[in-house]
């Protein structure tokens, strides 16, 4: 069976949103613009991860000659819309201003667009599923509820008087970050859902560790400002409490009172780098990703082409 590339998903979404979708033209225009962001299917750099393409990659493990290609493509498009909706909700709940388009919208506008995206995604799945619709919706709803619970825990998972432990971090990440990966894997290979579940958890943890480490080295991200209890910060605080009598915690407290935080944030970021916490998270991310790929190789030994393709994709 021919491989479905990113171009096919893009063409489908372009056609669907322009001609088949009943949403207001202005909403559709915003959706198009947002789908050009990092990690989205229309982004100019195609080496970036896209959830729709990931859906296709997992689907390729069980496709047969008679599989309805149109159904796979439309589901991949639906996944792109669904994940974009959850991104918008997350941006609003995290008070994150890093997305240029979302930060220019009012909360009302952003919520309306996210709602529209979610409904459009459900509509696409309903209209392009000949069988198993109840099972599919059940997977989607269950994992979206899981993601909500994870997001709720994450909102309150911050550095305060009590410093969260590494174990608590993994518990939150497992719920928050793995739910969407489980959703995509479960939907794309329903009959092997149990095989994919531990794999999805490891992929989700690997991705979150990488993001949390990258957040510290990035100029635009906001975890530090919001004192999110990410693993790099937890480990750097652990280092600081042993080596310099809690210098880092004192600096984090200053963040509360200082108006212009940019110099202080830079100082804190440089400190965290020097503790080895960033390296630690990147290496752990690699360990979890390797574990996921090993499990895939064990369960699907006859799918070497698909395994190598997925490996290249996840490690790109």
């Amino acid at each position, binding site marked *: 069976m021919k491989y479905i590339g990113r171009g096919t998903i893009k063409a489908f979404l372009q056609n669907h949103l322009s001609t088949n979708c009943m949403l207001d033209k202005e909403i559709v225009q915003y959706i198009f613009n947002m789908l050009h962001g990092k990690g989205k299917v229309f982004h100019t750099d195609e080496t970036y991860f896209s959830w729709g393409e990931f859906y296709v990659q997992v689907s390729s493990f069980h496709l047969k000659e008679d599989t309805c290609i149109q159904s796979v493509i439309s589901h991949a498009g639906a996944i792109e819309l669904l994940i974009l909706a959850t991104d918008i909700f997350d941006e609003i709940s995290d008070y994150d201003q890093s997305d240029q388009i979302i930060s220019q919208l009012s909360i009302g506008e952003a919520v309306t667009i996210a709602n529209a995206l979610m409904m459009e995604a459900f509509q696409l799945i309903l209209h392009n599923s000949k069988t198993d619709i109840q099972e599919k919706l059940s997977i989607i709803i269950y994992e979206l509820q899981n993601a909500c619970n994870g997001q709720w825990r994450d909102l309150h998972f911050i550095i305060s008087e009590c410093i969260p432990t590494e174990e608590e971090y993994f518990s939150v990440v497992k719920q928050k970050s793995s739910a969407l990966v489980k959703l995509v894997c479960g939907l794309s290979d329903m009959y092997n859902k149990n095989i994919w579940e531990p794999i999805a958890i490891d992929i989700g943890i690997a991705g979150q560790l990488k993001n949390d480490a990258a957040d510290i080295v990035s100029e635009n991200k906001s975890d530090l400002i919001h004192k999110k209890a990410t693993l790099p910060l937890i480990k750097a605080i652990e280092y600081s409490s042993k080596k310099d009598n809690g210098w880092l915690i004192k600096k984090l407290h200053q963040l509360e009172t200082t108006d212009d935080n940019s110099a202080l944030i830079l100082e804190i970021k440089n400190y965290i780098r020097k503790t080895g916490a960033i390296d*630690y998270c990147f290496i752990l991310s690699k360990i979890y990703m390797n574990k996921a790929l090993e499990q895939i190789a064990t369960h699907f030994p006859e799918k070497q082409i698909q395994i190598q393709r997925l490996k290249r994709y996840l490690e790109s």
Partner: protein
Amino acid sequence: MNQNLWNVLQNFLEKEVIGTAELALAKETLSPQQFSALTEYLQHGTKKIEGRPWV
């Protein structure tokens, strides 16, 4: 188990150069999976993976 990896990295931080002696000690301390990921990371450095969020 992750604590071993953290300890190895802390040991590396104290050294100016990471040589064969440090790597041999790391190999003894870590699981094969951890050691493999560590050496891969040391070979590629952080440039390849920084700033590429995918989730």
